[in-house]
């Protein structure tokens, strides 16, 4: 089973966990309905579409809470996870939009260590920021940064992408160098899937794979296209016979084809791309 941990942009949404389904353009969890836009709902929707397209895929479980940036919801979720996560069993744990908080992150990591079987650990968005800042990045199996976030991982002093130093930001086109620097300072997960005009799958030693087609320029502007990629790789890495680099490469290709089939403009919303995922997976798994 895959568990996704994140937030929804509704302050009144209570701490909720359970299996998630998708009906039309909504997620359903514990009888609650969530509109699929960007953020964690987009990641979960992409995971559900992926799981629905591949045999022997994991079920999708989620731990969600409302947070509009004040951090109150995130802290409640952190607390719940630190107290209860060890009672669950998951193949994959994907951490997503949570308010970065190092102390709480570390408590959650203790709870992960207490789980009977260690899951594959994936971090994206705010949780990737705090994973790096905690100094425990190498405990994770996969980070899915875009190139800007990779610059942040490569900057050993930056506590958030907002503070990435200019001389590192200027190396935007030198992704392999940034990857190397992130590993050099132990600020990367065991595997990186870097999203950009060319996607890179890399580990500490080398660039394992690159993916650059089809190239859909408009996807850069569409909020949630990184979330869908993380959702897809989270499911694929739990499927038998796929190694984590295999899953990352397939997800990178499928995400691009979801854009290709949705034929987007910069005004397209991510749900249109999510609905193209089954067709995209069919294409890349041929």
């Amino acid at each position, binding site marked *: 089973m895959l568990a996704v941990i994140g*937030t*929804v*942009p509704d302050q009144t949404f209570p701490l909720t966990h359970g299996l998630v389904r998708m009906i039309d353009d909504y997620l359903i969890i514990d009888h609650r309905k969530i509109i699929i*836009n*960007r*953020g*964690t*709902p987009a990641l979960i929707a992409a995971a559900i579409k992926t799981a629905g397209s591949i045999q022997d895929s994991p079920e999708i479980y989620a731990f969600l809470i409302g*947070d*509009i*940036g*004040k*951090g109150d*919801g*995130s802290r409640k979720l952190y607390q719940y996870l630190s107290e209860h996560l060890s009672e669950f069993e998951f193949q994959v744990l994907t951490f997503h*939009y*949570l*308010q*970065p*908080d*190092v*102390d709480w*992150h570390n408590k959650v990591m203790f709870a992960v260590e207490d789980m009977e079987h260690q899951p594959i650990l994936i971090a*994206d*968005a*705010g*949780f*990737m*920021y*705090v994973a790096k*800042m905690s100094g425990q990045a190498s405990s994770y199996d996969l980070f899915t940064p*875009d190139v*800007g*976030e990779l610059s*942040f991982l490569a900057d050993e*002093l*930056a*506590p*958030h*992408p*907002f*503070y*990435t*130093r*200019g001389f590192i*930001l200027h190396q935007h086109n030198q992704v392999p160098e940034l990857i190397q620097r992130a590993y050099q300072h132990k600020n990367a997960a065991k595997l990186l899937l870097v999203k950009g005009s060319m996607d890179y799958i890399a580990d500490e030693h080398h660039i394992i794979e690159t993916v650059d087609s089809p190239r859909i*320029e*408009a996807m*850069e*502007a*569409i*909020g*949630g*296209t*990184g979330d869908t990629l993380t959702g897809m790789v989270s499911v694929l890495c739990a499927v038998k016979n796929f190694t984590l680099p295999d899953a990352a490469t397939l997800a990178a290709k499928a995400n691009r084809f979801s854009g290709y089939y949705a034929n987007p*403009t*910069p*005004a*397209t*919303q991510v749900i249109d791309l999510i609905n193209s995922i089954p067709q995209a997976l069919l294409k890349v798994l041929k």
Partner: protein
Amino acid sequence: MLHFFRKNKKTKQQASVDRGIMVFEHTSEVIQAETILKKSGWVIRVMGPPPEIQTGCDLVIEFPLIEELNLLRTLQQAKISPMTVVPVTAPLLKPVDLFHMKDFGEYLMIRAANMKITIVKESLKIVNISGGGCPDVPFLAQQLVGKTLQDAPHPRELGHTLCGYALELAYQELLKQCLQ
């Protein structure tokens, strides 16, 4: 002596006095405090906190230490108080100040740090917000997408995190490019 505290003297004095930082409980308070202090004419800077007080998503306000009481008075009038005020003993992190613009023909996208905002050039309607990783990003997108630049709330009014602050910078840059 009274002239010493006049706001129009601040810029010259800033270079010769020690600096302090105001630390707030939430980033949203920093954003509010910055708005109030700048509106009142104080010369302050929003910066990153020193490592010993970083928690993960922080901003602090850097100011000339000698003006502490005046700034605190201004903030108290607006019912905002910092958790603590400390002198700066080491260089502070500087927020990203690079903007990247991408022209899609009918659409224009601006990126500041990790946040991107895209509008229709002709109508100035916000059509997408992407990037970021803090929980106010999906909320801000929900509030801004579909509205025009003139009608949309400023990200600084609704945002609470560094990602929200970065979106405000991108938004300001768009206003500068499109409305001036």
